[in-house]
């Protein structure tokens, strides 16, 4: 296969322009206020003051913890709930199976922005405002996940299940020893997607969390930046710290993330 040098050069040029804002963020995080105002391209030295400032003046480490804790627990919860429901829809024959499928499908059509107010009121009545649960539990319900995984379960040949049943296996054995291992690619894909979308969510934590120690990273940083709007070096240092975990996560799981996005066409 002959590769094109010309197309590669075009790609490199576009790539450099495209990635420039991220490069600019990294460089600016090391700049002093004076260097930023005078539009110096490179920082004069590896100045770490912006980093120490954001670490000391904002709750960034606490927000990091909140985001990590909420994203991890809600992803685990989503997996459990999704696996059971998908087994019911995809593998069990019973009266009402089709009805439940259509009910789940209908859920995909409900935009969260349209129900944010009644949902807020519900959480208030349940005393879940300003708590981790107020974010974790709603993140666990995603009808699209159930549709994707049940589709996957459906595609697993009957023979696997029948052979196990003859050997006396019960439903839990079949679900966790046969279905789940075989559906692993789709489960990892939805897990990665669930993690990234709860990590990056903006609207829901903005509504639910009122105490700054309960903020997730996107909300915490947004409020912090809002009150220090002229400190661009500090802002960029905060961005670098916030981007680092998701960058590492992305390097490890990008294949799965892409799989999760293309299956069923999820988009935030």
């Amino acid at each position, binding site marked *: 296969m002959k590769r094109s040098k010309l197309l590669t050069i075009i790609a490199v040029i576009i790539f450099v322009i495209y990635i420039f804002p991220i490069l600019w963020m990294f460089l600016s995080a090391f700049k002093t206020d004076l260097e930023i105002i*005078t539009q110096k391209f490179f920082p004069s030295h590896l100045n770490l003051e912006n980093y120490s400032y954001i670490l000391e003046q904002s709750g960034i480490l606490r927000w990091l913890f909140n985001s990590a804790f909420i994203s991890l627990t809600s992803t685990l919860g989503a997996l459990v709930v999704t696996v*059971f429901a998908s087994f019911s829809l995809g593998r069990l024959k019973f009266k009402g199976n089709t009805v439940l499928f259509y009910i789940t499908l209908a859920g995909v059509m409900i935009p969260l922005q349209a129900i944010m107010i009644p949902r807020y009121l519900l959480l208030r009545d349940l005393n879940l405002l300003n708590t981790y649960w107020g974010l974790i539990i709603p993140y666990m319900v995603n009808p699209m996940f159930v549709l994707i995984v049940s589709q996957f379960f459906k595609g697993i040949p009957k023979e696997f299940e029948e052979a196990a049943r003859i050997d006396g296996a019960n439903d839990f054995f079949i679900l966790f020893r046969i279905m789940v291992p075989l559906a692993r690619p789709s489960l990892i894909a939805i897990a990665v997607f669930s993690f990234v979308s709860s990590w*990056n969510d903006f609207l829901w934590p903005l509504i639910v969390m009122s105490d700054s120690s309960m903020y997730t990273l996107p909300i915490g940083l*947004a409020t912090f930046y809002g009150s220090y709007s002229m400190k661009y070096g500090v802002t960029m240092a905060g961005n670098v710290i916030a981007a680092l975990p998701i960058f590492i996560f992305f390097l490890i799981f990008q294949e799965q993330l892409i799989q999760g996005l293309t299956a069923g066409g999820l988009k935030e």
Partner: protein
Amino acid sequence: MKKNSIKGYLFFLPFGVLYGLFLIYPLINGFRMSFFDWDLFGEPQFIGLQNFSKMFNDPTFWSSLWHTIYFVILTVPILVILGFLMALLLNSKIYMKRLFRMLFFFPYVLSITIVCSIWAFLYQPHFGIIDKIFEIIGINYTGWLLDPKTAMPAIALTTIWWTLGFNVILYLAGLQEISDSVYEAATIDGANSFQKTIFITIPLLKRTHALVLVLQTIASLQIFGQVYIMTGGGPQGSTRVLIQYIYDQGFRYFRMGYAQAMALFFFAIMFVIAFIQIRLTLRTGGE
């Protein structure tokens, strides 16, 4: 048979309960709320359809709706076309293909706060880098986010940069499904690569075009965070979008019923588009 039914419902139950509680119940309660006047603290007053008539006579509602549509117009065509072109480039015979794909997709996983604060910095009057670039080509303009004329396009550009990678990925997935033999046959018939793109690639990706278009429209109609972080709806309300107006009415001025009436209007728009999306995704079998 009966035992099987119970089993089916039991496995569905954990999801079903959460689904009912956090999706269906709020939806029904939202319908009910839109008929009431309520400030969150006192007693709700039943006012019939007054919230809806107020909404249709509220110029801010219409301008917010228009700003949302304006944002859709600014972003959707560019994101779809550029997404396709980038996917073509990344699918062609270039070196370091995997590296390029990864890097173009990376901004998509950055959180909205990071993206918006980087771009607010780039747009910064006087010392922002974008001013400097324009200065070099001889245009002296400053304050992209401070001018009602340029604020929304500036937010649109930020959004395009942020989410383009997602559409590229969808297109790449579509491109991979086209078999090489189709192109080989065309080559034998003497088609050049431009002709192959126009007469083979574009028509064969019909379903992908439709899916990307619908998903992008849904995503763009939901715009909120970028505006909230970058301009707060200003300058002079020129970037106030529908979700922000609902958010402000509900959570800042506590007009719960009124905000919910507008939320239902938003729901109606989204419902129609989501319906098309489902028809598109289900036909592929969800995979």
